[in-house]
């Protein structure tokens, strides 16, 4: 029989594990102890709940969307993570991990960032908790997301341009891992999504799971019962796991994740790892990745820098294979249309990332993905201020294309 690979440490079925150099093992073991001992302690829970309540603005509200629902032929309710301090769900995870780092006696946190949301959230949490922050960001992303670089610097973080590889998120993670290897005694690596070696996928999920826990009880009060479907965009997958997790045992609630289809799956220019990728090892986990047939990691494409990642959290690959969640791809153009539609109908400018989920809802009834009038809970995981420059650049191009 052929040698098969099944992860041993913290697996999600045949995904997950700990595929890292031996040098990182002591840090990951220390982190696993912290996850079990510090994070579960009464003192930590109290401090985190205070930080999330006073500083980050939890709980975030649910919002009914009459006009958008009408346009979709559905009954759509938004979980307003865009109203969280920092402008996206990322703050849930950084508050948890930065506080944990402080409890662990670390003085320095490092983070990778793509769109800059996780970097900005890390810089803010580090400032609040008195930690030094160093943010690794691809040079190309620094150009695309200049305002987030300014936010990080304003909060006292040092932003290090990453010049290796394609100079985007994947390369920023590589450099953050290299920094951590060298400095693990003083430094906590504040990973921004549910990827990476064990225990990161569980640690980040547990800090993001507050989204779904709040939403379940808010939904009961607002609408009664449970939604028919829960919908979220998926890049690395932390906002989706955050809202899915509490619903996973509620078997009759459909879980749907939307990946970036970029210029279309057939173009090869996309980031739809779960829909069009294959199983590989990336950044410490066995998961679904975009790779060539020899295992070289491919460069993803998406209009949304936050979804532009060639891997995905291993738990999503597991939920997909188990048939518990399904994943579809939404193209750049569909996401941009939904970005405009939602802004006009509801007076809320969404980030490009959740615009992928909005685009799905706008066509879900027509495409027979959901029955008309289904009750849907969507994670509106970030606000769109950061995307305005990018939108107007694309808008000008699109209008030009239409007039030709």
């Amino acid at each position: 029989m052929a040698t098969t690979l099944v992860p041993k440490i913290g697996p999600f079925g045949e995904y997950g594990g700990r595929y890292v150099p031996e040098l990182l093992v002591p840090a990951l073991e220390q982190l696993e102890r912290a996850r079990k001992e510090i994070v579960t302690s009464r003192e930590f829970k109290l401090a985190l709940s205070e930080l999330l309540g006073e500083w980050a603005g939890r709980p975030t509200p649910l919002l009914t969307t009459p006009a958008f629902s009408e346009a979709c032929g559905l009954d759509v309710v938004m979980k307003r993570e865009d109203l969280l301090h920092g402008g996206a769900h990322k703050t849930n995870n950084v508050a948890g991990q930065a506080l944990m780092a402080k409890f662990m006696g670390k003085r320095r946190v490092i983070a990778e960032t793509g769109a800059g949301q996780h970097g900005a959230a890390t810089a803010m949490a580090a400032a609040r908790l008195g930690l030094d922050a160093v943010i690794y960001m691809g040079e190309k992303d620094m150009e695309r997301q200049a305002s987030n670089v300014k936010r990080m610097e304003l909060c006292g973080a040092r932003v290090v341009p990453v010049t290796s590889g394609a100079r985007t998120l994947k390369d920023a993670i590589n450099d953050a891992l290299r920094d951590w290897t060298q400095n693990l005694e003083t430094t906590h690596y504040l990973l921004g999504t549910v990827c990476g070696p064990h225990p990161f996928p569980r640690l980040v999920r547990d800090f993001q799971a507050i989204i779904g826990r709040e939403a379940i009880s808010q939904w009961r009060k607002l609408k009664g019962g449970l939604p028919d479907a829960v919908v979220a965009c998926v890049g690395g997958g932390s906002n989706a796991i955050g809202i899915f997790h509490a619903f996973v045992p509620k078997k009759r609630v459909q879980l749907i994740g939307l990946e970036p289809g970029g210029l279309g799956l057939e173009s090869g220019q996309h980031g739809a790892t779960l829909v069009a990728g294959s199983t590989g090892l990336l950044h410490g986990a066995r998961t679904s990745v975009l790779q060539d047939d020899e295992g070289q990691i491919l460069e993803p494409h998406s209009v949304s820098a936050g979804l532009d990642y060639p891997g995905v959290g291993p738990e999503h690959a597991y939920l997909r294979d188990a048939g518990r969640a399904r994943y579809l791809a939404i193209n750049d153009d569909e996401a941009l249309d939904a970005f405009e539609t939602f802004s006009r109908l509801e007076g809320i400018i969404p980030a490009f990332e959740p615009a992928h989920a909005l685009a799905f809802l706008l066509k879900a009834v027509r495409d027979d993905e959901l029955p008309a009038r289904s009750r849907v809970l969507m994670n509106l995981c970030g606000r769109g201020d950061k995307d305005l420059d990018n939108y107007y650049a694309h808008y000008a191009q699109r209008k030009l294309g239409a007039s030709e």
Partner: protein
Amino acid sequence: MLTSRGGPSRLKRALREAPQVSPFLVLGDPTPELSVALAKAAVACGAGMLEIGFPYGDPVADGPAIQKADVRALENGTSTTKAMEILGRIHDACPKTPLNLLVYANLVHARGFDRFCEEVVEAGASSLLVPDVCLEESAPLKKACRRARLGHVQLVGPLTSSDRLKRIDAAATSFVYLVAHQGVTGVRGAGFDEVEALVARTAWQLNNPLCVGFGLSKPEQIRRVFAAGARLAVVGSYLANVIDENARGDRLLAAFSEALGPLVTAGQ
């Protein structure tokens, strides 16, 4: 049954007789032809082993010098398939020299563990180090190596506990590779007393021969790690910088031999 042309036991025998110095070379860097020529030059200098990397786009255990070597090799088209062919040519050119491979896990995973191990043995490899598979996840790799009669090398670091060191030693079949600095590959200057103490502390706990790498660049360092009990020293980034500086010139082989020669001599 497959026969191992390099053979893991040949290296162990050589290491019992005398400590050996090995360069680290990336297949296809700076070109496929020149990487074969560099291997020959290294053996002519007296290198007792060649450590050979398959180029990979995301080498997280490596610093800037080796990353650049990977980029050079990938840019000239060194796929895994092409790398296998270059490896075979190196083995043909240096048939008596053990070849230890350094290959990132996803390249092995994509080909299938068994097939990868069989192919590299066929091409002449004697052992395999996959730097991003830690002890707990190493069982399938170990099994595939055993089936292909390929030696299996495991990393340890400065913070590896002595209990863990014993388990890693028991899992390894060729040698144990000590990363001398907590960090990625790269040339380092100061602080060698610590490295020496670490080598001594590690070597006496092992049944396998101890290899030291990451940061070595001076004859004095080679002498000191061998005196402390290491049987093998790998020089990587220092040579990668020499290759980088001379990649386009006609002095590449001369410059490479001038850099490696004194290190090999220091080990004798």
